[in-house]
């Protein structure tokens, strides 16, 4: 039946073409259901867990290529240097504990996170639980959030 074939062709074409269109509302729904602040807090927690297990692959995704990471030893570490530290286990985290987390969002594409940390860590043989105040800046590029800056201040040293 030629008519049936026409119908089949039209149906098939419509399905193939409609797939990307159907994808768009899914992304929108995700944005609607999870506010940016919730997304950032979730990402921050995921990044913490990646640090805890020394997951270089995950951290490589979370951190922007131009990440700037000033530490309290007077160094501004790059992403490559930070990943090398994680890979070499120079920086070992035992327990993560973050409190007083605040997220501020600007233009829908930039988020600043601040928090208070009593994370138990070992850095170059020195064990510390803080407390530390940290800040992190996340930006959204090409549809995904990445950390572009991170800094902490060790309150226990004052």
């Amino acid at each position, binding site marked *: 039946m030629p008519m049936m074939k026409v119908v089949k062709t039209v149906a098939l074409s419509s399905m193939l073409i409609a797939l990307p269109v159907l994808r768009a509302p899914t992304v929108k729904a995700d944005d609607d259901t999870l506010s940016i602040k919730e997304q950032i807090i979730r990402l921050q927690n995921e990044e913490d867990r990646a640090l805890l297990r020394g997951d270089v692959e995950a951290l490589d995704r979370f951190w922007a290529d131009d990440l*700037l990471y000033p530490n309290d030893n007077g160094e501004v570490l790059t992403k490559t240097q930070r990943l090398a530290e994680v890979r070499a286990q120079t920086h070992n985290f035992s327990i993560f504990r973050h409190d007083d987390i605040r997220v501020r969002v600007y233009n829908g594409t930039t988020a*600043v996170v601040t928090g208070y940390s009593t994370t138990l860590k070992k850095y170059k043989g020195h064990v510390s639980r803080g407390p530390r105040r940290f800040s992190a800046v996340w930006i959204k590029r090409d549809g995904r959030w990445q950390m572009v800056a991170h800094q902490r201040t060790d309150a226990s040293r004052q």
Partner: protein
Amino acid sequence: MTGNPHWNLCEMRENFHDRPRIMTRRFLCVILLSLPAVALVAAADARPTPQKDPDTESVKKEITRIEQQYKGALVANDLRTLTTLMADDFLYVGTNAEILSKAQRIAQLRSKALAYEALQQDDLRVVVYGDTVIVSGRNTSTLQIGGKGSWGPGGASHFINPGRLSGNALFTHAYVRLQGRWQMILEHVTYITED
């Protein structure tokens, strides 16, 4: 459906001799039917793209100039300029791990509880991400600590030792272009300690 073949593009009647022609027609039929949907997809994906700065170097120059202005305003205790440069949601994370809002930071400087006698910046790195800029660098400062404040961690004072204080610190400044001008949204300063 047997008229002019040019007007029967989607006719799918099987005929062994016409098979190549029919296949070509089917292909063209799919393409033609797809065109409106392709246009629809293109429209759905046409999201507003963030304004891309044509010249990252000019943004870097502008931010470097603002950094100079900010530093000068701190030393001069020029609160009007500082108020302009800081975004309303500005956050300051200080060397004693205190976190201050814009109003608290301005109040701290106004009260002269903390005054900058000298401030030098070195090793400035500026990274531009469209309408967001990250700056990091090293501060060498001389401060005059005039008294106690109430904006330390947990509400406690963080001015333990009033008097003159000199030291080196690393800092991060974050800027966002808001209402057409660059505004600082975050300043985080950490004293460099020797291990």
